């Protein structure tokens, strides 16, 4: 009788090791590629904006499509922190940044912050939660540069 149970457990383990394990490993490495690729898209975009000081509709579409083409559905925010320099009353000045919605034309010294947030967990994250009970946060990262 116990032999029968052993076989059932064995079958279950074989299924996990032969089907689930490769799936987990494959999706983990895919996750890594997705994150790195999105980061590359972000650096390309920031480099472009910091050099030209301008974002056209085409640039934005290009960037959105680029980020979404790696398999993760992401929500992208482009934030413009406009540099404001005011007198501080002591004969000197202080610098501060104001978040603004106008992101077409940028001025020198403005900071561009690109925020990428995944809408859902990736396959690897879901599998990790399901099988290993390891929970990791959704993709959410920023990168910023200053307009030259």
């Amino acid at each position, binding site marked *: 009788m116990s032999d029968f149970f052993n076989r059932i457990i064995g079958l279950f383990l074989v299924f996990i090791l032969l089907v689930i394990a490769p799936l987990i490993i494959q999706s983990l490495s895919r996750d890594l590629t997705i994150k*790195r690729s999105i980061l590359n898209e972000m650096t390309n975009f920031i480099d472009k904006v910091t050099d030209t000081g301008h974002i056209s509709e085409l640039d934005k579409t290009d960037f959105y499509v680029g980020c979404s083409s790696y398999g993760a559905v992401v929500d992208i925010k482009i934030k413009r922190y406009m540099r404001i320099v005011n007198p501080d009353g002591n004969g000197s000045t202080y610098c501060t940044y104001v978040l603004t919605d106008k992101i077409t034309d940028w001025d020198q010294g403005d900071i561009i912050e690109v925020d990428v947030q995944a809408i859902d967990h990736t396959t690897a994250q879901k599998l990790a939660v399901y099988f290993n009970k390891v929970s990791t946060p959704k993709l959410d990262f920023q*990168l910023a540069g200053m307009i030259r």
Partner: protein
Amino acid sequence: MKKTGIALLVSLYYLGGLIVFSSNYIQKDIQEFEQLKLSFAVDYASDAAICELLNSKDLSMDYSETNYLSADPNLALETFIDVFSANYGLNFDETNEDHIKMNFIPAFVVAMYDGYYIATPTLISNANNYPENELSDGDWDLKFGPKLPYKYEYNGSTYALNMGGEYALKLNNNMLSKHKGLPPGISSTEDNLGEISRIISSNISYTINKLNETNTRWANTFYIPRDLTTYTGVNCIEGPSVLALVQNVDLATSRPISAFSVAGSKIQKARMVAAYTRDGIKYYCYADKLPSSINAENLYPTIKEAARAGYYCDIKYME
């Protein structure tokens, strides 16, 4: 029965291994990714810092000393912190600024033509006048010290180097003089810049050690970036630069990570383009290649601008 048991045990081991592997892999993945992101963040921040430095109003540049410029290093540091904050989605407020300054930046260097500024955490006011307790009391801030010369010693004489290498200041027996050319022991401009890089990196090490003298938790270990050593044969300092050392960043990872970045600038002499009319055709060529028999009508900073003004490339003199 026994065989099935063994097979089951082996499978269980494999399963355990798989769980350990994937959790480990996820941790490593986060760590690696954050490391990459941090290096981008530090690069962007130091790029912004050097840009801000070069954009300041008065760089005191002139034609007699190539690479010479002077600017306020505090501008660079402020911009570095602002852009670094934005890279982690932090607000631009004093609390975050202080947190970054005091916890992540052990040294920030602005290397100029004839000297460098180094910013390290400094006690700016004591909580008690006596006894002083540097470990926990008082207010700390990341402050630049006075400008330090690139001090180089050879045969009992002390030299103050500069990035141009056309001269060095020599101090010997309380006599200060101007030494023409590179000082003895330094044979080329590359060596000169390598020596400057070595001076800066050894001062960074010294300052960090000194800073942690009274720190009982200090393990005497910190990360010296490979880029700062001259052993690799690659020198990171070519002109006025910003060197940012960022350590123990724990904003996104459980284990602190570190990064280093150098942002450099290079001052180039513009090669003017002369525009003239030869045989009834409007031509341009580099001003230094123009024969003395031809008079230039106009001068342009780039060949593109000369072309835009309707002049054609004169292959005869451009070659």
